């Protein structure tokens, strides 16, 4: 299985995402923002960071990178894509996922060990979890407030497209404490917290994050064997 990890100028967690992909047992293919080519990968991770400095709006400029010209149609066609933090923001800016991420309501960057509840354990990226399972992984961002209009929120809830939700106090003012969502096919998932920082004992608050990557691997293998 080959999972691509995209590096934009200003990507920070691309090496971490690659490490997590390897830890789950897949091969990593590094994808370059300026390259209009996915090099035959079976899935893609858009990692965290501050693409292009994120000065304008998070993910606003990365959305127009050449690699996105091929990624967007591929994702619409069912290619599994996971957007973490900045990657989530890029997915929203590209309209692969609805809503937007705005500045945290307390106006500060915030790095904490965050408890999440897995609401939807049937997406490509969460199938290794149990629905309702609580996990602790790092949350770290300045603009992590998920917003969408009421109709969109109702639709997301109704269709079970809220993938992970914050447990405990709302860390950033996200509507309905939404931490991550999926598209209607369940192949594109975006979330603000960082599963790739919780995959190894001794580093990070837990190893709860590894199953995001294991899930994708399992679904890909299923596709292959089917």
């Amino acid at each position, binding site marked *: 299985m080959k999972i691509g990890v995209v590096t934009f100028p200003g990507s*920070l967690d691309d090496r*971490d995402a690659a490490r997590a992909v390897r830890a789950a047992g897949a091969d990593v293919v590094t994808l370059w923002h300026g390259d209009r080519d996915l090099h035959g990968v079976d899935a893609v991770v858009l990692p965290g*960071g*501050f693409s292009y400095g994120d000065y304008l709006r998070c993910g606003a400029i990365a959305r127009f990178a050449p690699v996105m010209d091929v990624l967007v149609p591929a994702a619409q066609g069912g290619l599994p894509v996971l957007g973490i933090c900045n990657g989530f923001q890029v997915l929203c800016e590209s309209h692969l996922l609805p809503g937007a991420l705005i500045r945290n309501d307390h106006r500060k960057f915030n*790095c904490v060990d965050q408890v999440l509840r897995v609401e939807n354990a049937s997406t490509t990226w969460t199938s290794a979890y149990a629905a309702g399972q609580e996990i602790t992984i790092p949350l*770290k961002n300045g603009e992590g407030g998920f917003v969408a209009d009421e109709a969109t929120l109702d639709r997301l809830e109704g269709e079970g497209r809220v993938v992970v939700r914050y447990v405990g106090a709302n860390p950033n003012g996200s509507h309905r404490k939404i931490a991550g969502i999926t598209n209607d096919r369940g192949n594109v998932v975006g979330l603000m917290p960082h599963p790739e920082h919780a995959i190894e004992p*001794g580093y990070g608050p837990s190893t709860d994050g590894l199953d995001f990557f294991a899930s994708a691997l399992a679904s890909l293998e299923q596709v292959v064997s089917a």
Partner: protein
Amino acid sequence: MSAQTEATRQDLAGVDTVTQAGTTPDTEQPWGALGLKVDEYANIKEILGRRPTSAELAMYSVMWSEHCSYKSSKVHFSLWGENTTDAMREKLLVGIGENAGVVDIGDGWAVTFKIESHNHPSYVEPHQGAATGVGGIVRDIMSMGARPIAVMDALRFGNLRHPDTLRVLPGIVAGVGGYGNCLGLPNIGGEVVFDDCYQGNPLVNALCVGAMRIEDIHLASARGVGNKVVLFGAKTGGDGIGGVSVLASETFSATGGGPTKRPAVQVGDPFAEKVLIECCLDLYAAHVVAGIQDLGGAGLSCATSELASNGDGGMAVELDLVPLRDASLRPEEILMSESQERMMAIVEPAKLEAFLAITTRWDVEATVIGEVTDGEHLVITWHGETIVDVPPRSVAHDGPVYDRPLGRPAYLDGLVADTTADLERPVTGEELRATLLTMLASPNLCDTSWVTDQYDRYVMGNTALAMPDDAGVVRVDEETGRGVAISTDCNGRFAKLDPYTGAQAALAEAYRNVSTAGAAPLAVTDCLNFGSPEDPGVMWQFRESIRGIAEGCKTLGIPVTGGNVSFYNQTGDVAIHPTPVIGVLGVMEDVSVRTPSGFSVDGSRLYLLGDTRDELDGSEWAHVAHGHLGGVPPVVDLEHEMRLSAVLQQGAREGWFDAAHDLSEGGLAQVLAEAVLRNGIGARVGLERLVLKGVDPFTALFSESTGRVLVAVTPGSEDEFLAAVPDSVSVTELGLTDTDVDGLVVVAGPDASFGIDHATLRRTHKATLPGIFGP
């Protein structure tokens, strides 16, 4: 010709050339306004055999400033060398004098680290000042050939309740965080200290650590005739011009009359720096860099003269080729600009194409602005006219040296005599409990997560420990887990009472902190923050501090690899406490086997290592409860620290410890509260054994005797642990962790016992900073 040079061509008439300088010896020059003294100006004329051109004057003035030339501190630096033995040099790959020191941490890995101040700029513009402080130290580390792997920030502010603290603190924290987070460097520790003495003089000391393979070390020298001088990174703008000479000179203080030198603030672009880091690492990997230097204080003046001075020939630079953000900049300004996110490399002509291919890939602008010559001078031209022609060494390394008068301040006798002996102390359980809670909420002991949660401690995925643990620990080698631990410390009050002992106490604490995590201490960096060197009392404090650090390092057997001096941290005649911040770096073979500071297992037996004495002078308790500062600081016993360190390292390796926490400000009481709060595991603590040794409960809880660590030994490891503690290190059993205890129960005889539940501890510890700065 570009539009830009076209535009400036007509200005050539006003440019001062070397030819002109030779024929107009009597031209009035603004050497005074640029911060030069009359004899320094005379010295320049003697070096050149003529008056300097205005561009040369600009270069000398910034490079001979206190900040760049260390003119007041240099004479004391011989103490470093005198106290460094051959054994200490064994692991030292690059020592003091380069951009940052480099040490060998084993398995072919080299680590470079350094701490630097950005105090004055952070007072003027807190956010950008602090941000560019981080940016500057990161470039120092990059210029050694390393990948930066973590940052730390040691911060000092005035009174927590002073409006100016409300102004500077949020900006400084957001600046440190914003820049470091955007670079993708985990922030793994630092300090947040409040004291009235820092009012108007906040300290922002930023540390960066980087790693590389030993063979990849790069140095700042321009060698090889014909090699190209390449400037790359951001364009040069009009920001921070004269920042160095002005910000770090006496004229910053209120005393300076004369021309207004409102410092031009620099704005950092962390995204540009992130790209620059990746670009540099690709350049190193491709072996296309023969020499490299970052552009920091004094900008091009510093980079060109230092590279040339460290090289084997001369250098010729065409200043017109420097890409500008503002076409109207004069050559003097281009030489002095401190625009951020720039680097300068020396590149062999045959490798230039490969070099430029890499910079293009990263969208980094790179421009050949000159080359290494077979001459001996640094020659800079502007529109074909020579405007600088100097021996580079005279600019970069042969600046003035002052042996300033020094003397023990007269006030010290009175200060030392005014001990804490007569201060009223809590006695009953109720009083001790109340004192513990007051201390726990006090500015220097309260929870700092309002600050540290603004820093990304996870990025890169190699962080094994970070705040609020005693040391920051990061993995360097992903295969083996080999890595480093770092801690920065300084108690300025101790240094005020006795700068020699205070500096050693800072060294001892940082050394102990990395040992507590389980690392073997290896090397030291320091940031010496002091008042005006023109005050003999300050100069004495400075000398005593350096002596304390240097002699202490000799005892400990670990070298000082580099550091930074910041003078003129004072308001009027009143200097800050001497604040020699010490960073100690230690090595671990596998950082996943490290000791955290919070209890996590039920039934761990608690032991106190080290002796508790009645040492409350200069303590946090005296400060908080009585607003008192006087007496003598606690005794520092470095031989003891070494024995203690050995036990802590062994315990970490053997897995004996559930937790270990170093005792410093606030003493045992603070450490117990923090260890309980960390994971919510309670503890039952008995002070009887200390009382039997003649230590009363108050002293047991609040004394700040050095050389002490609380360890929680996992059930079953007690005997092995006790057998390993040498007789010369006292060990006192204190109790047990206990999940049935809600918070902390302290038993100290019938009248002095008390308990505090977890919720009260937490609320008390957490409320202080959010109460002032908001949620």
